[in-house]
Each structure stands twice: as C-alpha cells, then as structure tokens.
C-alpha cells in the first residue's frame, strides 16, 4: 500500500534526532501545561509558536503537535487529582476520576486515563492515516442542521446524568443554556443579556469560568464543610508493583469505555464545529448507556474515566484532519497551528497532501511517536501527582484555591471573570447543599454555544421550517435517535407507575 510507505517515511522523519528531542520536550511541557487548571493546549501552542522560527517548519509543527498531545494527556491530571477540569475536553473525566481519587485510587484513575488516551490516540492515528480524504468529505457534509442534530444527541446521551430530583436537574440544564447565551448574539449582531448592564458580560460567560467556580471553589467548600476539614485520602505508597496491578485493573475495567471513546471521539472530532468536547461527553454518555453496571458510573468507574479520555485524544487527532485537508480549524488550538503553518509559508487545504507530502507525512508520523512518548512520560510522572495528593488537606486546599484563581485569570485575562468564579463557587456550594446537580449546567454551557447558533442557522436556511432537522439525509436519523433517547427515560418513568397500578 502506498499509504504505508508514506507513513514509514513519515515515522523516519519523526525519529530524526532533533525531531525526537523536540517531541520529548514538547510532550513533557504540554503535560504540565495541561495539568494546570485553566491552561490548556491552546496556551502551550500559542506561546511556543514564535520559538518555532528557530527550527525548520517540519520540526516546528512536530514540536507543536507534541505539546498538543502532551496537554491532552495532562488535562486528565487536574480533573482527577484536583477535581477541576482544566479544559472543557476533560469535564467528563472528573465525573469518575475525582471519586476514584477520593477513594484513594488516584493512581488507578491516572493509569486508566493514560492508557485510554494512548489507545484513543493510536486508533485515531490509524483511521487518520487510512481514511483522511474520505473523512474530510464527511466533515464537509455536516452543515448547521447536522451539527445541531449531533448536539441534540449529545444532550440525549446525558439525560440520565443528573440527580434523582427531576425539576432540579431541568433547572440546572436550563441555567447552563441561558448562561451560555450571555454576551453577544452572532446571528443578529446585537449584544444580549448583558446582565445588570455590566460591560464585563459582553464577553460572555466562558465554560472555564463556570467549571472552575463549580469544581474549584464550590466543590472544595462543600468538601471542607462535609468533612470538617479532616479529609484523609488514604493512599497506599506508590510502588512499581502497585502500578502494575493498577495497570492490569485499568485494562480489565476500562477497555470497553476506551473503545467506545476512541471510535466515537475520533468521528465527532473530525467535524469542525463539534470537536473534542462534545466527543468526550458523548462517549461518556454512550459508555454509561451500554454498560451493565450503570450505577457504578459517577462513583468511580474506570470505564467512566477511560471513555472521555480516549475520546478527547482521538478527537484531538481527528480535529487535525479538517485543519490539514480543508484548512479549517476544529478547535482554538488547531486554529493557532493553522496560523503557524501560514507563517511557515504552507497553505493548508485540499492541495497540502499533494504539494507538501513530506511535511504532512512527517507530521502524521510524529503523531504516532508523540503518542507513545506521551504515554511513557505520563506514566513516569504519575507517582509525582499522587504524591501531591498526600499533602495535608490544609495545605492542598489553599493550593487548589490559588491555582483556581490564577488559572482562571490565565484563561480569561479578566478580573470580571474572577469575580464570577467566586460568585459561581459560592452559589454552587449552596445549590449543592440542596441537592441541585451542577454537572448538567456545566455540560449545557459547553454545548449551548454550539447548539443555539446551529439551530438558528438551520431555521434561517429553511425559512423557519423545523422539518429541516428531519428531512436531511444525515440530520434526520440523528435527530430521530436523539428524540427517542430523550423520551426513553420519560417512558420508563411512566411504566413502574402503571405496573404498580396493575398490581
């Protein structure tokens, strides 16, 4: 096969000493940037962009891709150890990663995340290598109605996520969706919901602000109040043997989620408007849906860590695809990579694979190598992250607060948003006391900004006719499946009542 010989050449390029060195440095730097709450791959790639002037373009993009990979691995670390999703792609990782860490099984969660990320990345790389042009066409056939249908599906997979109290769950979803509309309405080009006419709201409310508020401040306050400040996470000493048994357990209890995440994450990641976040959320939802022990989810299921982690790595490879083949970035990070390619005088787009084939295959080869490097570097650092958790809680807690505030500023660059983080944090604490589930609000603020504009774009296309979601060949089936999934719990809810009545 022609593709394989190209790939072999590409891997050889990536294995050149300078490139290999750049990969190792890039992955390590990326891992730590990703592990900081608030900082993600986009920061890492952005600051290192100018440095790449010092090396040839081929090596430069390999370096940036390595940072990207490292940061995707690193995102799981803050989700698991601190319970704060460092990036929107790692939200779902907190659902089960954090409970595992609180049970003293942080190393299991971290190992699972690393292995799942590796498999996700590898599966995505193989799919990428074999089907790149085909997948680019698939991405093009997704217009606004299809993306909206996909968002509906993402919501549908999450119906069961909330607590037992249905009105409170609905409240939380609606709240997240409304907060997502604050700021500016792109469709009409007008400012919207500028709360209390404070100009700071013009920039909207970012996901990261709500997430850091809810998880970094609210959840921490709740933990302090519940445990009276006496948190003890019993952690066995990290030993090589312990890691080995964790690895075995991770494989045994996380393989299912890993596969679901790898495949689903990649395909959703390929779609430019969707990207890694919906990919990881949907994978979590689907993994839970098909699981036999659904009750384990949210309480520390390795599958629940594996699915989103496999998905976000698969999706990050996936989102490289539209960037390279179409010149369209699927995420802010790939947007900056795209800028980098323009700086180096490369034109991403349909001709890139033909005109610059050596560059493209060198990059793809580096994905494979970065992925392997990231796995081992990540595993090597796990004892360090677990050790951090063994600090006395009265030291760990202020550190988490400091990192939340500093990271929140790094992500938003605005004092206004820091106040919002504090307000959300305090509000989240009280809501939590009264059993309002908040994960649905966090999900809603991630998906809302994609769902609302695509819905309105679709309706503009159809002159206001909602049938557009049902009659298009791709959107139609997805919408129908989503609606069935949403109605399913409602039907189930009715059934026990009826059987009771019969009995």
């Amino acid at each position, binding site marked *: 096969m022609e593709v394989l010989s190209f790939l072999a050449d590409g891997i050889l390029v990536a294995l050149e000493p300078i490139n290999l060195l750049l990969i190792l440095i890039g992955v390590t730097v990326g891992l730590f*940037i990703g592990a900081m709450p608030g*900082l993600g791959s986009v*920061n890492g790639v952005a*600051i290192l962009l100018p440095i790449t002037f010092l090396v040839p373009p081929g090596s430069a993009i390999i370096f940036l891709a390595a940072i990207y990979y490292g940061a995707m691995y690193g995102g799981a670390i803050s989700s698991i150890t601190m319970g704060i999703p460092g990036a929107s792609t790692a939200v779902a990782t907190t659902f089960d990663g954090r409970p595992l860490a609180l049970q003293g099984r942080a190393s299991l969660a971290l190992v699972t995340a690393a292995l799942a990320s590796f498999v996700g990345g590898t599966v995505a790389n193989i799919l990428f290598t074999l089907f790149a042009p085909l997948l680019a066409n698939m991405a093009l056939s997704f217009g606004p109605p299809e993306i909206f249908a996909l968002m509906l599906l993402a919501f549908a997979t999450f119906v069961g996520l909330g607590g037992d*109290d*249905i*009105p*409170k769950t*609905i*409240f939380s979803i*609606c709240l997240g*969706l*409304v907060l997502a*509309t*604050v700021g500016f*309405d792109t*469709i*009409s080009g*007008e400012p*919207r*919901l500028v*709360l209390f006419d404070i100009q700071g709201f013009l920039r909207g409310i970012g996901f990261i602000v709500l997430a850091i508020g809810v998880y970094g*401040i609210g959840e921490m*306050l709740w933990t*302090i*109040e519940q445990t*009276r*400040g006496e948190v003890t996470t019993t952690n066995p000493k990290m030993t090589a043997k312990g890691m080995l048994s964790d690895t075995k357990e991770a494989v045994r209890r996380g393989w299912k989620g890993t596969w679901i995440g790898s495949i689903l994450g990649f395909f959703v990641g390929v779609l430019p408007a969707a990207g890694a976040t919906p990919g990881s959320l949907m994978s979590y939802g689907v993994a839970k849906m098909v699981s036999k022990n659904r009750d384990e989810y949210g309480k520390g299921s390795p599958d629940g860590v594996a699915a989103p982690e496999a998905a976000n790595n698969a999706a990050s490879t996936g989102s490289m695809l539209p960037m390279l083949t179409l010149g369209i970035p699927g995420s802010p990070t790939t947007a900056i990579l795209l800028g980098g390619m323009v700086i180096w005088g490369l034109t991403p787009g349909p001709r890139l694979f033909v005109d610059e084939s050596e560059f493209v295959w060198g990059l793809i080869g580096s994905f494979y190598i970065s992925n392997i490097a990231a796995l081992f570097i990540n595993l090597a650092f796990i004892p360090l992250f677990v050790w951090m958790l063994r600090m*006395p809680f*009265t*030291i760990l*807690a*202020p*550190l988490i*607060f*400091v990192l939340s*505030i*500093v990271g929140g*500023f*790094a992500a938003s*660059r605005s*004092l206004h948003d*820091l*106040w919002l983080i*504090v307000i959300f*944090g*305090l509000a989240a*604490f*009280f*809501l939590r*006391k*009264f*059993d309002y589930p908040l994960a649905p609000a966090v999900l809603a603020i991630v998906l809302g900004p994609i769902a*609302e504009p695509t*819905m*309105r774009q679709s*309706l*503009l296309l159809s*002159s*206001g006719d909602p049938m557009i979601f049902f009659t298009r060949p791709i959107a139609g089936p997805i919408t129908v499946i989503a609606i069935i999934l949403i109605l399913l719990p409602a039907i189930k809810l009715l059934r026990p009542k009826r059987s009771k009545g019969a009995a």
Partner: protein
Amino acid sequence: MRQGEISLAGLLALFSMYLMWKSTELPIGYIRGQGPGGGFWPFWLSVGMLLSCVAIAWNWWRGKSPASVSDEPLMDDFGWRSVILVGGGIVGFVALIAIVSMYGAVGLFLVYYLRFLGRHSWMLTLTMAVTLPFALFFFFEGAMQISMPQGLPFTQPFFDLMYDIIY
C-alpha cells in the same frame, strides 16, 4: 433545611424572572421566515427555569424532596464558620488582586489560610507564601508570557525590577 429549600427556590425563581425580562430586549418570538429571534432561546429557557422552580416548590409543599422534610439546620455553627472563613478568604483574595497585584494577593491568602485556618507553623507558612508567588511569576510571566494583574501603581517598581531579571 425546610425553610432553606423554599427560600432558595424563591430566589432562583426571581433570578429566572430577571433573565426573562432581560431577554425581551431582543425579539423572543418566532420571526416568520427566519426562525427564532435573538431573545427566543434565553427567554424560553428562563421560562423553563421558572417552571422548574414552581415544580420544586410543589415538591416542597408535598414534602417530596429530602430537604423539604428535614428539620435539621442547614449547617451547624462549625459548618457556617468554616464556610464563612474559607469563602470570605477567597472573596478577600480576589478583592486584594486589584490592590496588591495577583502575586501579592496569593501570598497574603496563603498566610491567612495556612497560618490562621490551617494552624501551620510560621516557618512553613512564610516559606510557601514567599516561594509560591515567585514560582508562579516565573511560570506565568516568564515561561507562559501571561501578564497577571499588577494592582495599584505602587507595585510597579517591584514588577519593573522583576521584568529586568527575567527578560
């Protein structure tokens, strides 16, 4: 708890109504031939929030949710005290950023938390409160090239000195 549940629902209902009112600045209806207006999505979702609050109140009245039948206080004295001390500390932290810069605020917050809440030794407190801001400075300003807030002008000479060191 019982009283808290209904008060919170009332508060959230008020907030929903504010959001509904604010949404009406843009058209909230279905515009013929164009689909929903700019206020449609937030308005009807705020209605959803309001209805949820009504449902929560209904459950409260019927005594369906755990909180609505609990006579326990929301938190005991110890709970209130730790929440106020920690929460207040964070509020103070953010308020200080605009005055003594991010790094100064980090240092002061650490002193407050480690020494007065955590009852750690002065030795440990001061080591952390001094090293962490410096470490963060080198990480953010030096490595990541992200400028943190610098507070009022009196901190400027210090920052200028630090910049001379790192660049």
